[in-house]
């Protein structure tokens, strides 16, 4: 085996091909009994995937998943409808779990000083020693138990938690308010007015899927106006009905202005009313009309109004949010104060500086860093020195990343799909993580590392989890099957809110200083904090700029002009002694003077695809606390790989992307008479007529559908050069338009036109129509004239310019969905309406001697959509979900005038502006 080869040569590749063939054949099934979800066949039926409920945690918060396994090989992640953080959908990054599992650059064996050694040697090194462990925040009961034991049984050892995107400010404010780390959980289904301060709570964070779903449903039901006060445009900001762009200083003043109005107007306590005066002074001369309207809207919705504050906002603003939410009667309504599920949330063990100092002290025999990469993400903490000062160091992780490079030991971490464990969602609901495959590279879990510290040299993740949860066989099996532990969600905190402490905090608040240039650092929508360096995510477009393969500095037009830069001109951003260079993009709705830069890029680890892509903005993060940043033009340009350049509608809004204000009357349906020289040929004999409806009012632009489509349909990635040359392969893209009334996100995929213009120009019958209305692409027959793409007015066809799968590492090939052809070079491809799922459902129904159930077929994009913006189904059934939307008078076809008769109808984006504006 080539397990320890640092680079894959041709020889290693061949060995891997053999190894992966063996893997596929043997299906390294987990030894412990895992229980299939819903479908329980007596054995694996080739060609039929098994569904397993599992979960994973990101920064400690659990997300319930259903993983598909084809003959022992996980190939697709879906959301678990029973899990409160998922409700059946997922985020884009969850979809990438399949890619991180089959990552060819994963650590492939235990190493000591670069030499392969056995895991046993590591066991010896770690058992009963004085060990310092740094790991990501967790909500796992099993780990909680182990940490407790370490703290009590091994006084010389200690455990710390770290993540680059911490919620420390949230917890700190919660602690002031309730005496314990409390999470303000938002439930938009109970809200009629929500204001967010730089919180992208609909598209990122632990509860974004649930929040987006509930807000979209609430809006559709009886309306909920969303106000956004933020720097760069986030999906949440453009989903909002009202938005104002601010820097940190002005945002704080807006908060003061709105809070002052709310607190003085309400039945708040005296202390709060006194605070209102202070706040009014601090607010100064911010846009009072906006603040007035916002406050009035909140007050009118008293009891159903909520403040949501972004994780990175100052702690005092979070404190203020508690005060305002209470004044609005939100606490216990749309905002629930829930004790954080995170172990030791807000305590000293979450302080990286503390770890860094202790690790360097030499008090420990071994410093273990597991699953986090602080050398990359916290450069100012000088972990290099800490690790050099430690007697011995080990890295437990998926890759030999920046931190691993400074550690003596490298121990492969088990991927979440290879692990036993447990997680809790933000509301406390527990789930069991069950493995779908034995660790491909023999990795171990963090719980198993901790158990080794405690001297258990053959720990079993299964037993550790089972012991910690203390379930009997029946409950254990039920939990495995459903994916959630019943009745484990946390009760709201019983503590009363300590108003005085909060008022004191806010009174003492020193508003963020206003600098000429301000840097807003934010997590990348695609690669998060940099740990997801997979092709899918590297090429996943940012929701608004559509940039891929790297980060950019977003600037307003005025700021760009004052800096003397244009699109793609490189700016040099300096804070303290650190500076980074990255290309600028002029972004609408960007506050003047604010440069927004995504974190998570500029990696230097073993993940070859991400190596050196973009600039590492973590370098600036600590320096920005103390220094005023500067930005200058670097005098060169660097192309930005964007999947969409034009965002203007060129007066085509009616034909393409319709929108209206909620106060306006509904748009009239298209009634133009269609004259045709032809008599319609499509025979209505097929029992089903597949169709889709997309509600643009519900789309947040979160890209989860793009990611899910890529994974489901084996869509290749093309690299930065490919994207720059307009050769991106996404079957489904989310178009971003600047409509007259705000941003419109329009998921665009093959429209499956009844009178498809692509079909009649194909000279070889490679794209034809099925009786049930699918525009079918016959890869085998395609010769690659590309006329179909030219003649597609929606430009949703994608061409294999090269053999994109040819040089794919053998391990990567395991991730492919076996029910979907892997396309070779020279053929066209496009959205199939997940034809494999349609036919699969039909076959299953056939073999069960029944008709297809209503809405039984679900496409990958529909399934993953947090807001259910996409609905698919049978148009012939008048009561199917799609028919109900399809028949709405406002439903329209894009480019209807062309007479292509698409099978996808869109619902216009409806924006609920506050009435005073008109």
């Amino acid at each position, binding site marked *: 085996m080539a397990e320890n080869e640092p680079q894959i040569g041709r020889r290693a590749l061949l060995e891997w091909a053999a190894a992966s063939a063996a893997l596929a054949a043997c299906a390294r099934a987990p030894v412990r009994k895992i229980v299939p979800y819903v479908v329980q066949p007596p054995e694996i039926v080739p060609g039929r995937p098994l569904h397993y409920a599992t979960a994973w945690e990101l920064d400690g918060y659990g997300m319930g998943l259903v993983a598909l396994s084809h003959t022992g090989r996980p190939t697709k992640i879906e959301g678990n409808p029973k899990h409160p953080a998922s409700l059946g959908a997922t985020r884009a990054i969850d979809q990438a779990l399949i890619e991180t599992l089959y990552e060819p650059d994963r650590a492939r064996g235990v190493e000591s000083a670069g030499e392969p050694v056995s895991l046993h040697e590591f066991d010896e090194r770690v058992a009963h020693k004085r060990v310092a462990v740094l790991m990501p925040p967790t909500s796992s009961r099993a780990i909680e138990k182990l940490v407790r034991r370490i703290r009590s049984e091994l006084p010389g050892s200690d455990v710390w938690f770290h993540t680059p995107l911490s919620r420390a400010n949230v917890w700190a404010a919660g602690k002031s308010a309730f005496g314990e780390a409390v999470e303000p959980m938002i439930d938009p289904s109970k809200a009629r007015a929500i204001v967010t301060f730089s919180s992208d709570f609909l598209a990122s964070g632990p509860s974004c899927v649930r929040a987006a779903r509930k807000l979209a449903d609430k809006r559709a039901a009886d309306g909920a106006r969303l106000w956004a006060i933020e720097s760069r445009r986030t999906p949440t900001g453009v989903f909002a009905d009202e938005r104002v762009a601010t820097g940190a200083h002005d945002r704080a003043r807006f908060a003061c202005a709105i809070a002052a109005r709310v607190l003085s107007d309400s039945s708040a306590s005296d202390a709060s009313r006194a605070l209102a005066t202070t706040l009014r002074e601090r607010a100064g001369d911010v846009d009072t009309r906006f603040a007035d309207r916002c406050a009035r809207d909140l007050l009118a919705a008293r009891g159903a109004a909520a403040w949501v504050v972004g994780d990175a906002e100052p702690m005092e603003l979070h404190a203020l949010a508690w005060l305002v939410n209470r004044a609005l009667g939100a606490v216990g309504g749309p905002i629930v104060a829930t004790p954080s599920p995170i172990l030791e949330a807000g305590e000293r063990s979450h302080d990286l500086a503390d770890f860094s100092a202790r690790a360097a002290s030499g008090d420990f025999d071994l410093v273990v860093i597991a699953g986090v990469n602080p050398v990359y993400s916290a450069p100012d903490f000088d972990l290099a020195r800490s690790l050099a000062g430690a007697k011995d160091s080990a890295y437990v992780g998926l890759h030999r990343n920046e931190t691993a490079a400074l550690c003596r030991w490298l121990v492969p971490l088990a991927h979440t799909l290879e692990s036993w464990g447990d997680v809790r969602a933000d509301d406390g609901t527990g789930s069991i993580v069950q493995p779908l495959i034995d660790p491909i590279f023999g990795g171990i879990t963090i719980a198993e590392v901790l158990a080794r510290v405690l001297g258990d040299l053959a720990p079993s993740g299964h037993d550790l989890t089972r012991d910690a949860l203390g379930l009997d066989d029946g409950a254990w099996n039920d939990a495995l099957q459903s994916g959630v532990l019943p009745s484990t969600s946390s009760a709201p905190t019983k503590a009363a809110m300590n108003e005085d402490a909060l008022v004191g905090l806010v009174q003492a608040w020193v508003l963020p200083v206003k600098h000429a240039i301000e840097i807003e650092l934010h997590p990348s929508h695609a690669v998060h904090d940099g740990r997801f360096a997979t092709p899918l995510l590297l090429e996943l477009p940012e929701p608004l700029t559509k940039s891929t393969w790297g980060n950019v500095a977003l600037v307003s037009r005025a700021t760009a002009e004052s800096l003397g830069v244009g699109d793609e001109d490189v700016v040099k951003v300096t804070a303290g002694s650190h500076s980074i260079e990255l290309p600028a993009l002029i972004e609408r709705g960007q506050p003047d003077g604010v440069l927004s830069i995504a974190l998570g890029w500029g990696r230097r680890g073993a993940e070859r695809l991400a190596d050196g892509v973009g600039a590492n903005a973590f370098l600036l993060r600590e320096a920005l606390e103390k220094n005023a940043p500067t930005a200058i033009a670097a005098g060169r340009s660097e192309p930005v790989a964007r999947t969409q350049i034009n965002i203007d509608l060129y007066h085509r809004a009616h034909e393409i992307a319709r929108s209206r204000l909620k106060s306006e009357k509904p748009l009239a349906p298209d009634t133009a008479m269609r004259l045709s020289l032809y008599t319609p040929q499509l025979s209505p004999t097929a029992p089903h007529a597949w169709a889709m409806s997309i509600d643009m009012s519900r789309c947040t632009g979160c890209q989860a559908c793009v990611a899910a489509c890529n994974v489901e349909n084996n869509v290749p990635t093309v690299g930065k050069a490919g994207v720059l040359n307009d050769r991106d392969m996404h079957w489904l893209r989310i178009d971003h338009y600047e409509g007259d009334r705000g941003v419109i996100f329009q998921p665009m995929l093959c429209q499956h036109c009844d009178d498809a213009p692509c079909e009649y120009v194909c000279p070889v019958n490679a794209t034809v129509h099925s009786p049930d209305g699918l525009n079918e692409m016959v890869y085998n027959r395609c010769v690659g004239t590309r006329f179909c793409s030219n003649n597609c007015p929606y430009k949703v066809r994608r061409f294999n310019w090269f053999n994109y799968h040819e040089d794919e590492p053998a391990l990567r090939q395991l991730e492919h969905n076996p029910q979907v052809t892997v396309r070779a070079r020279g053929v066209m491809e496009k959205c199939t309406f997940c034809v494999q799922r349609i036919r699969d459902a039909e076959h299953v129904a056939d073999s069960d001697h029944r008709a297809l159930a209503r809405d039984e077929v679900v496409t990958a994009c529909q399934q993953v959509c947090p807001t259910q913006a996409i609905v698919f189904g049978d148009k012939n059934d008048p009561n199917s979900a799609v028919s109900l939307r399809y028949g709405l008078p406002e439903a329209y076809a894009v480019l209807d005038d*062309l007479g292509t008769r698409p099978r996808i109808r869109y619902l216009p984006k409806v924006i609920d502006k506050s009435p005073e504006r008109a």
Partner: protein
Amino acid sequence: MKTEAVALEEQLTNLVFEPPKWLKPCLIVTGLITIQLFVCVFYVFITGVGTLGNNIPVAWAFPITNFVWWIGIGHAGTFISAFLLLLEQKWRSSINRFAEAMTLFALFQAGLFPILHLGRPWFAYWLVPYPSTMRVWPQFRSSLTWDVVAVSTYFTISLLFWFLGLVPDLALMRDRARTKRQRIVYGIFALGWRGSARTWQRWRIVYGLLGGIATPLVVSVHSIVSMDFAIGIVPGWHSEIFPPYFVAGAIFSGFALVLTLMIPARALYKLHNVVTTRHLDLMARMVLVTSLIVAYSYFAEGLAVRRGHDPFEIHQLFYTRARGPFAWAFWTTIVCNVVLPQTLWLPQARKSALYLFILSLFIQFGMWTERFMIISGSLSADYLPSAWGHYAPSLMDGLILFGSGGFFLFAFFLFLRFVPFIPIRETQKDELT
């Protein structure tokens, strides 16, 4: 036979039997470029069409532009020899073979590109109906299948027409051969021609018949080529004016290429008695007439779009082309195809070989940019602004276009080297009877 006839015969056969010194280096240089072309083509076949600059939305770019341009150039050859034959324009006889050879060699180039640009060129034969176990047939509503038939018909008919006209002269070459090898080779290609009056009569009628069918053919072929675009729904493609517009443009560029080739050959071979100033003058008039037709087409297209009130068409024509990313191609087209040819109203311009030569180069460039602007410009910005894109050719695009020029010239120099490129018997007949 009269002595002047014999002298003419000798002059014209000596063009082949005593090749000028410059011909060999020309053959070597263009031969090397031809090799370069085939190396590039091989590379594209092996690696994939991704080596070209095409993308989505601009899925057709250099190769299809080159295809339309080369095939258009070919049209003048047929037009001169067939259409003017039917009109009994005697002046055509001294240049017709030249022009027909140009047609054939341009068709070689044209035929290369549609196959080259396919994603899977090894399956190009799927466009032809043949019974197979799959029972799948080509899809004949697509203009690409029409194209296959039209271009292959055009090539075949052009070849037959050219060869039939050549047979009597090949027989003469056989008879005047100076070496045994020449006699054998020319003898084989002469197919046993022996000058029987009955054969001559049959020859004239069949030659006339081929000319007769080649004339509507030439019109239909470029009409069908234009339908590759006109049947599409792309703004800037979907236009009823395309067939005549493309045919006029084709003949326009073809006449220009005849001038480009004829003027140097006339000077180098000292053929001023055969290709006279009158020939140049008449050719220049044809260029002027076709230029006016082309100019009218541009005007009519603009007018139709302007009056049509289709925002997509208007954006395509008046923004993308006139002011947008393809403005350079648009204005080059206007200057080369409309403005410069107006100088041909001056008799001095029509009679100056040097001026005509330079002008002809501009016209070819202008016609290429016109095709490029129509094909790639229209694709770069069609319906959904989100999908608009830019196009930049790759190195391979440039090398292949350059190589096809070299291959064309190589074939042409071979033609000059081995084939009597002035129709000897026809010229004799015109001079003497």
